[in-house]
């Protein structure tokens, strides 16, 4: 399961970062330390929110994350894929378009078209 951290400054979400397996994220790769150093007052308004993503989707070597559970048909639509060209595999089993994908489900989209 992927755990994400959002960095909120002045009540606005600036960005979110995946946590490393041991629960850290590396602020050196962000520019926000500069922001914090330049305006000490802002420190009071910085908050971190930790949350888990609902589902992990793999498609042709790319990984996508979605925050809410949804129907398989909706997932294909969100990625602009056709049900004629992609099969939805949830936890190793093929599912039809009306299947509701839950939190924690591992989803794979399989492209069925191959070149001539």
């Amino acid at each position, binding site marked *: 399961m992927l755990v994400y951290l959002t960095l909120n400054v002045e009540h606005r979400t600036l960005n979110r970062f995946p946590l490393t397996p041991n629960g850290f994220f590396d602020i050196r790769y962000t520019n926000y330390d500069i922001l914090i150093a330049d305006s000490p007052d802002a420190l009071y308004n910085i908050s971190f929110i930790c949350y888990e993503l609902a589902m992990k989707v793999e498609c*042709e070597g790319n990984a996508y994350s979605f925050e809410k559970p949804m129907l398989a048909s909706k997932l294909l639509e969100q990625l602009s894929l*056709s*049900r*004629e*060209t992609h*099969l939805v*595999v949830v936890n190793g*089993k*093929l*599912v*039809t*378009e*009306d299947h509701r994908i839950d939190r924690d489900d591992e989803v794979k989209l*399989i*492209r*069925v*078209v*191959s*070149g*001539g």
Partner: protein
Amino acid sequence: MKCRVCGKPANINLRSYKTALCEEDFIAFLEKRVSATIGKYRLIDEADRPIVAVSGGKDSLSLWYMMNKLGYVSDGIYIDLGIEGYSERSLEKVRQMADTLRRRVYVFHVRNALQKGIDGVARVIRRPTCSACGTIKRYIMNRVCIDKGYTVLATGHNLDDEASALFGNVLYWKREYLWKKNVVLEGRGEHLVKKIKPFFLCSEREIAAYAIMKGIDYIYEECPYSEGAKTLVYKEMLNRIEESSPGTKIMFVKGYLKMLKEKGDEKEDGRESRYCLRCGYPTFSDKCSFCWLLDKFGTEYDVEFDQYN
């Protein structure tokens, strides 16, 4: 969605057949269609010894698996094109399946014959890679049958392959190719083996679903030299039509087969058919294109196969 046969949750929705099926019933449904195709078009006789042309992709591996499961006991032939990485990975999948089925697979290495991978071969003869590959594959697949006593060569061509090829031939009115496609191409004498396509009426989607359900481990990646750009566009167009009018692809291909049958066997294109003086393969000149290739590379190579049991 519920399975139309048993009422359990369905695993696949088949809009072109207006049905949805669970895993078990879908497998039975697809296998029945392939059996029916084999029966109706007389693809395999009891006395036949079939062999399957395997590439490591979903179609050929599923076909090899299914034919053996349906009782058409068959070995495999794999052509190693000598493409770095890709060829080794696909051969590995083929070997895995050979182990599962406990069948033999013959391996022909292009590099052993011509000292070059397929891209190098193509460069020397100044032809596109896919065209050089096609010449070698057609020849070697036929040759393994002649040399090793197989009477039928099965390939994994599917409904989408046939529909897209037909679509292209109609678009550009390629009359010389239009009526050449068929579920079966009869052999000729002792030099040309019979070729069959048991998946002619099975869509890519159905075959991929079958492979997933059966846990068939196939290679997803495409050949790096694939020049199938046009084919992919046709497939894309046909799938878009299929999306809004389910069943169009199968109607298109079945309609073609019906017209082909009505048309009957018109005589070949008039050119006198001859046989290669060196190896006996049908050709229109003294020497077939494969023997020409061997000459071009100056090799005295005699076609050999590795066997993996």
